[in-house]
């Protein structure tokens, strides 16, 4: 691939025309929605114009496109100079924004009003500059098709290796997860994020049974999550049952919901199934929203009981004559105790899901799921009943969703239909697919990436979901089969070689 370092002729007018075209499209895209803003004032809606933002976007698009064209044609030097000048200038102005603002410099130099967008542009300039520098050094284009294929193959090998290492990486991650609450720099906020991430890992593993193993595209997984949460909340509020009794009930309820939905629709294929499950998720949410006498509708259910440690509550002042967790064990009361307990609770549930998945893949039913995913007709001719087999996968996936839901209810203490919108299903599905379908460890990384990172950067509040959507697109365009996509056959004929390279070869075609 180092042969591509030869400098071809550079078509400057062509590149300028192309960059101009891109800038024109950016103008058309931004003219309406960026150029005007509908402002609500007392006398009705009014327009505010921001044409300077449109102009800035167009100029940046022009410069960026031209820079990429130059890089493709092996001319990194001008790009390096321009990009570094931009990057250093922007970074300096942005990091001394208070000073620059007072002198009126900021308004003249910064392309946009929002600092987040400006920082993003500075970052892009740094990346472009780094690319150019790398090119100067190595004299090989990172952008051509050959390099892209080489990168794909590299990532495939990495995926295979991570799968191979899973038996070492897994316990290592598990070790980190177990000692996490006792690490010195862990505070309440980080622990809350960890709980959230592990919750999504568990849901991802649960959905993986349906999507990854059985190959059924489920866009309404959140419905089972909701069924689990409401089952626990309603049972606990009406019958005064504890968390540990309700947990299996919630799982069973969710599994029943799965069977109820699955029975009529599981003979549909692919996208149809996806859209019906999406509809089902919405139906569940609408019913929760409107059946006021049963679910309290949009007001939600509050006062959902907290979990207890074998009957010992985590409260500072337990009722007279009863012990609480800290008094029973003679510890100092700490509000963190409950959070740590919740963390271990969800970690335990997640590990249960994982263990279950790993073991069931070796059972006939698990093998039947994977076989069905690959070829339904072949399965039918071999005597596997497609609907019943899919139904088990659906029900079991739903059951784990239900467990996750009752954990959610007990953690929040309050649930309302608002927590169970389609976006949740989309996020869980994104975790499964981005991680590389069927890869248990990939789901862990995807959940950390998609849930953990945005939570850490909560200050970027309003840009969070924007970046989330963009990241989903970018990762998929970059690695269409998922970050760590690599599938080892679960069962092999005795004596068959363990090859790491073969699957990568075959799936790239």
């Amino acid at each position, binding site marked *: 691939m180092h042969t591509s370092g030869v400098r071809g002729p550079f078509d400057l007018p062509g590149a300028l025309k192309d960059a101009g075209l891109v800038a024109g499209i950016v103008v058309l895209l931004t003219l309406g929605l960026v150029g005007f803003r509908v402002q609500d004032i007392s006398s009705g809606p009014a327009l505010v114009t921001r044409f300077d933002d449109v102009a800035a976007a167009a100029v940046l698009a022009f410069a960026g496109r031209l820079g990429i064209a130059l890089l493709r044609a092996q001319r990194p030097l001008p790009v390096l100079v321009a990009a570094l000048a931009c990057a250093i200038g922007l970074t300096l102005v942005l990091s001394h924004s208070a000073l620059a603002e007072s002198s009126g410099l900021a308004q003249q130099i910064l392309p946009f009003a929002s600092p987040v967008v400006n920082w993003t542009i500075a970052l892009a300039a740094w990346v472009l500059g780094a690319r150019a520098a790398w090119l100067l050094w190595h004299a090989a284009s990172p952008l051509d098709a050959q390099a892209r294929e080489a990168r794909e193959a590299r990532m495939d090998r990495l995926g295979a290796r991570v799968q191979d290492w899973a038996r070492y990486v897994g316990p290592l991650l598990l070790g980190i997860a177990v000692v996490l609450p006792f690490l010195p720099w862990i505070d309440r906020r980080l622990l809350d994020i960890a709980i959230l991430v592990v919750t999504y890992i568990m849901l991802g593993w649960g959905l993986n049974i349906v999507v990854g193993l059985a190959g059924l595209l489920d866009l309404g997984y959140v419905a089972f999550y909701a069924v689990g949460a409401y089952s626990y909340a309603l049972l606990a509020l009406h019958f005064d049952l504890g968390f540990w009794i309700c947990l299996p009930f919630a799982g069973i309820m969710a599994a029943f919901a799965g069977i109820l939905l699955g029975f009529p629709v599981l003979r549909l294929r692919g996208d149809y199934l996806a859209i019906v499950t999406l509809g089902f998720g919405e139906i569940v949410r609408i019913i929760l929203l409107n059946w006021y006498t049963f679910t309290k509708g949009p007001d939600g259910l509050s006062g959902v009981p907290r979990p207890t440690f074998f009957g010992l509550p985590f409260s500072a002042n337990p009722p007279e004559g009863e012990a609480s967790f800290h008094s029973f064990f003679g510890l100092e009361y700490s509000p963190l105790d409950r959070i740590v307990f919740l963390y271990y609770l969800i970690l335990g549930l997640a590990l249960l899901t994982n263990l279950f998945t790993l073991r069931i893949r070796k059972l006939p039913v698990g093998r039947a799921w994977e076989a069905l995913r690959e070829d339904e007709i072949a399965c039918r001719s071999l005597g596997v009943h497609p609907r019943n087999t899919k139904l088990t996968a659906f029900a079991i996936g739903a059951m784990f969703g239900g467990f996750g839901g009752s954990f959610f209810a007990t953690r929040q203490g309050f649930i309302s239909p608002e927590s169970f919108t389609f976006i949740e299903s989309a996020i869980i599905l994104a975790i499964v697919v981005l991680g590389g379908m069927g890869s248990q460890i990939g789901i862990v990384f995807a959940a950390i990436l998609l849930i953990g990172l945005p939570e850490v950067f909560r200050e970027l509040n309003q*840009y969070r979901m924007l970046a989330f959507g963009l990241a989903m697109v970018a990762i998929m365009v970059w690695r269409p089969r998922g970050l760590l996509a690599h599938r080892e056959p679960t069962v092999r004929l005795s004596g068959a070689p363990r090859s790491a390279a073969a699957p990568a070869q075959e799936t790239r075609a």
Partner: protein
Amino acid sequence: MGYFLQQLINGLTLGMIYGLIAIGYTMVYGIIGMINFAHGEIFMIGAFLSIITFLALGLVGVGWVPLALLIVLVATMLLTSVYGWALERVAYRPLRNSPRLAALITAIGMSIFLQNYVQLLQGARNKPLQPVVTGGMRFLEGGEFAVSFSFLQMLIILLTLGLMAGFTLLINRTAFGRAQRACQQDLGMSALVGIDVDRTISLTFVTGASLAAVAGLMFLLNYGVIDFYIGFLAGVKAFTAAVLGGIGSVPGAMLGGLLIGLIEAFWSAYFSVEYKDVAAFAILVLVLIFRPTGLLGKPDVEKV
């Protein structure tokens, strides 16, 4: 009788809007076999561009309603179709030969992105617009329920019928239409006989987006208020309509849209308003169980 007639008119108007969005779904599904999940957001962007154009025209001082409507219609269709084009170019084209699930995830990602993009730029509160087209006709004044058929509803129905006629001509008579139908049958074969497949797919997205833009404009005029979240539900219902009519079939999408609109109107009138969305989804499930290819769809034969 009067009440029934009124619901029929309301349902037809609603159905026209769903039908226009459904065409975009059905065409894209027919040509590249993916659910363009972000199509609902394209509709929403169309609605936002409409309200912006209306307000901008107000600033410039174009007061004559038919002229304003015409300018808004053209501007919205043009600008929204650029979004449709860019969506395909950026998010779907690189994934054309990838697993279908990848394309679906990108589509969901794009949908989330576009929703937040609009929310960020235009704010999360709903945007109201004063009624532009007012007045109407009233029937059965003497009966217990007077039926009103507003000029706006007439405009929506007539405009949709006109667009449908134009669109049918486009698909049946023009070179692009021929290429589009050929690509629906077989992408690889079309490329072999010299059809520019990339261009055809791009144009498919552009046409779908411009029809969705018209639907957005109609939604804005009909309800008078929009927010950044309208794309999701309308999109899902329009997809339901496309499936109901038989996905891949353009007349089917229109028929499905009309049926969904009528079902929704009658359900809210005679049963309950709260569960009108449940009705649409329940119909979808029933259709898929008893007639999985939809009303006008061709049965697809599975080969081993």
